[in-house]
């Protein structure tokens, strides 16, 4: 029986129950499945070995992203350049053959639509509000920004979805993160989600699906919502959601996979009905005042190690929990930082603007706005801007943003996951520091021994100019 007043999450869940078992486990229908090269090969192999097929290849879309180098993919004559790393090349080649052999639509590394799965899905209108979306990557939560129930899955689950278009799941608890008021100038959705993770902690959302509610999210662009939902996983939640609204509909209308004609009207009517009912309750609720959010950076190796840019590195003793004290010590040791150091005094040698968190056109614009007429500091050795997809790249170039970026001394690259994870050639050397717009500052995430500070695109651009973590508002006034 369904409850009378339901949350957005509960409505999507209820609409997708295929079957319910006695122990409460549900067989949930999956509307959209995004596939990339890293987690899929063994799932395809298992299908092949057992003589099974993909149930709904038409609801599945494959695109390579994680392993691809972000340097030129074709030579001057348009011939494809080989990939140096043998294992990367093997994974990419496997996807290229697996997708068509199972009848799955495939965007190739050399296609203009290629990009990071989580950028491509919404951009193509393949990801839709109210849909259940899975992908073998934990940042699938991203698609919650358009109101989809989206989460990452492992290889065995991937095989299950390919073969049956369903998953066996237990319903999550609901959590509301409410932010009312207005974000101050210079404060972006990335700063907000870093701040939120700082408040709730990396385990704050465990077992829950978060719904982001309140004026700040209503005012936020779709791309900003995608950034926020993307990092729900860093707050421990399996998924994050923002209710679809007029902005969502305007964003999706006319995109290649978006519904058309009568289907579109029917879709909009249903999407509108998904908003959390008045009187619906959440298992957990967190309220944050937008006025408290500053441009925020991470200083440690956990995404909850955040601080406003104007502050200093905390002392381990400032934490009540002894195990957190220990974790902070280890983390500061790894990061090569001392308690009490002002964040603004931390020099960075590398800048990475990209990843499924921050590589959409608004992110590139925000970075370019800071870089315009400025130059990268000489102390910054390596600074790259990696658009999330070929279409983002085209758009940025049409606006002349690539010129601004390269004139400032930063590199303008081909789309892919890049330095978000150390799987392709874009890596941060051991012991060196990177201001990065990605989502994870874990030990070794950007390369063995790499030190990551998570920031917004504007803050990353500001760091590129000064060679230090910087309050972007001091540059832009």
């Amino acid at each position: 029986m369904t409850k009378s007043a339901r949350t957005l999450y509960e409505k999507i869940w209820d609409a997708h129950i295929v079957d319910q078992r006695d122990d409460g486990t549900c067989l949930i229908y999956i509307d959209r499945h995004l596939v990339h090269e890293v987690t899929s090969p063994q799932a395809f192999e298992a299908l092949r070995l057992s003589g099974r097929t993909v149930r709904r290849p038409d609801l599945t879309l494959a695109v390579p992203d994680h392993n691809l180098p972000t340097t030129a993919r074709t030579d001057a004559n348009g011939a494809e350049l080989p990939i140096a790393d043998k294992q990367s090349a093997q994974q990419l080649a496997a996807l290229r053959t697996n997708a068509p052999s199972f009848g799955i639509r495939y965007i190739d590394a050399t296609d203009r639509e290629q990009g990071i799965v989580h950028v491509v899905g919404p951009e193509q209108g393949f990801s839709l509000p109210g849909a259940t979306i899975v992908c073998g990557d934990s940042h699938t939560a991203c698609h919650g920004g358009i109101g989809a129930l989206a989460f990452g899955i492992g290889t065995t689950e991937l095989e299950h979805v390919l073969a049956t278009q369903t998953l066996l799941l237990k319903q999550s608890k609901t959590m509301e993160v409410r932010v009312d008021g207005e974000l101050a100038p210079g404060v972006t959705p990335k700063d907000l989600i870093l701040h939120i993770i700082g408040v709730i902690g990396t385990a704050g959302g465990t077992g829950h699906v978060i719904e982001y509610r309140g004026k700040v999210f209503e005012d936020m662009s779709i791309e900003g919502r995608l950034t926020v939902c993307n990092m729900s996983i860093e707050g421990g939640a399996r998924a994050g959601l923002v209710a679809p609204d007029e902005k969502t509909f305007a964003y999706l209308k006319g995109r290649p996979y978006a519904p058309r004609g009568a289907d579109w009207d029917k879709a909009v009517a249903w999407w509108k009905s998904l908003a959390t009912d008045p009187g619906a309750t959440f298992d957990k609720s967190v309220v944050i005042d937008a006025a408290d959010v500053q441009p925020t950076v991470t200083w440690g190796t956990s995404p909850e190690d955040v601080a406003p840019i104007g502050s200093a590195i905390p002392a381990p003793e400032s934490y009540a929990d002894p195990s957190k004290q220990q974790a902070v010590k280890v983390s500061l040791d790894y990061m090569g930082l001392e308690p009490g150091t002002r964040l603004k005094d931390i020099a960075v040698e590398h800048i990475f603007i990209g990843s499924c968190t921050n590589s959409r056109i608004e992110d590139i614009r925000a970075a370019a706005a800071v870089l315009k007429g400025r130059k990268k500091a000489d102390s910054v050795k390596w600074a790259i801007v990696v658009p999330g997809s070929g279409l983002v790249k085209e758009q940025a170039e049409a606006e002349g943003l690539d010129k601004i970026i390269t004139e400032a001394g930063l590199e303008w690259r081909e789309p892919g996951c890049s330095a978000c994870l150390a799987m392709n050639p874009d890596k941060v050397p051991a012991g060196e520091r990177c201001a990065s717009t990605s989502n994870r500052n874990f030990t070794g995430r950007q390369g063995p021994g790499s030190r990551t500070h998570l920031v917004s695109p504007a803050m990353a651009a500001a760091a590129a100019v000064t060679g230090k973590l910087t309050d972007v508002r001091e540059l832009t006034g």
Partner: protein
Amino acid sequence: MEPISEVSGRAIPFGRKNVDTDVIIPAHWLKTISREGLGEGAFETVKKEQDSVFTDPEFAGAPILIAGDNFGCGSSREHAAWALLDMGITCVIAPSFSDIFASNAFKNGILTVALPQDAVDRLMEVAQTDPIDIDLQSQCVTTRFQDRFEFDIDPFRKHCLLNGLDEVGLTLEQGDTIKAHERRMETDLPFLAKAVGTAG
């Protein structure tokens, strides 16, 4: 998945306790694109030890592995089960197993048999020279020396193993229920039920 009703043959008398998944298959084997071929990396470090049972020709191709307490602890990598299967092992006997390993083994059609330590000790002894028989239907392990050890198994897992059903196979049995849901979607939410597009 291959159905299992009985496993008979030589058993590798490994007997070690707390064998973690990194011992079963070291991390550097994880960048593969296949489940097959992992047998080569299975117990890689143990194989390098002197007089390892894993390099003893006597046990080559043995379908059974006997280990100590807490077999398969450590990371959740499914590669551990794939590696065992690839080396031809379809049954592991130990006093206890890590939950995640047992679940991964089950998902891949490997029978895990938990027996008391003294029974395991006795089987270790027999395994040095003689084969061992495991009958899943009657849930017992026997030897040609009249040893007989009964074991417990979850009835659901037993059913799946006997019939070669993995989770995917089980859900596929619900094909009609899934079809019915798809029909409902086509009427109620047609825009989700299909993805008509132009890219790719």
